[in-house]
């Protein structure tokens, strides 16, 4: 069972992640994107962006870095081998673009029990190098009971 006392707990800001152009292209290919602004620098700039635009779910890479700190936290007591992804949401203030340098701060929004299972919801704020909010990622993990 997930420790309900971690509700409200905030985890330290993660180390900066530099978004690379080829990583954007690699991720775009992996999610079947054919949108030119994910692949073609000139198309992205013609559309008014400073560099390649990352697909809408790219923020998961940054969210994962924060999630790892929670999974590794003995206080939270999350058995990762029993984790199932329940839901996911990304609210963007602006799209992520190549050469963004992003950090994240995660807060445990809620811990709920559902029979033998636990549901834990995280809110991860993704910030650029000026500490402006780029995206809020909300994720619920279901930890199956024994």
């Amino acid at each position, binding site marked *: 069972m997930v420790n309900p006392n971690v509700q409200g707990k905030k985890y330290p800001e993660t180390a900066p992640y530099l978004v690379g152009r080829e*990583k954007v292209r*690699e*991720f775009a*290919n*992996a*999610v*079947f*994107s*054919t*949108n030119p*602004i*994910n692949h073609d620098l000139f198309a992205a700039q013609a*559309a*008014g*962006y400073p560099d390649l*635009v*990352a*697909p*809408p*779910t790219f923020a*998961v*890479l940054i969210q*994962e870095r924060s999630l790892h700190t929670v999974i590794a936290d003995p206080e939270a007591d999350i058995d990762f*081998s029993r984790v*199932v*992804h*329940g*839901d*996911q*949401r*990304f*609210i*963007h203030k*602006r*799209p992520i673009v190549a050469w963004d340098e992003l950090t994240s701060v995660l807060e445990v929004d809620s811990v709920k029990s559902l029979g033998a299972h636990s549901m834990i919801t995280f809110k991860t704020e993704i910030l650029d190098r000026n500490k402006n909010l780029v995206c809020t990622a*909300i994720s619920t993990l279901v930890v199956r009971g024994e």
Partner: protein
Amino acid sequence: MTHINIAGLEVGQEIGSQSFHFTRDSLVRYAGASGDFNPIHYRDDFAKAVGLDGVLAHGMLTMGAAVQVAVNWAGDAGKVIDYGVRFTKPVFVDANTGADVLVIGKVGSIDLENNTIRIDLSASCAEVAVLGKAQAVIQL
């Protein structure tokens, strides 16, 4: 800029559909791109050992592919300002035949004040819904 004329849209109108063919290669490619190397997404023996019927696609792969229907309609991946899904059923990916995920997008609501359109996405595999409440808000 986008080609979409908000005044010409109706709630319930279909904006596009696409069938995505997932193979084991797709899963390995997504694992590498995302950094999610959970072996349930590429090893049959491991998937079976943890009680699954077989290797399944990353939920985030299905989520990431499904939104492309809305992106292609909007013409600009940067216009998706809010996107959320529930993962309702796994997509099992057979080693030989793969799996096909059919995604259909419809206009869910129109917000004239904020100039946004909510696109509701349905995603199914073998006629079973694999995402729930999949909604993408497009800023025009």
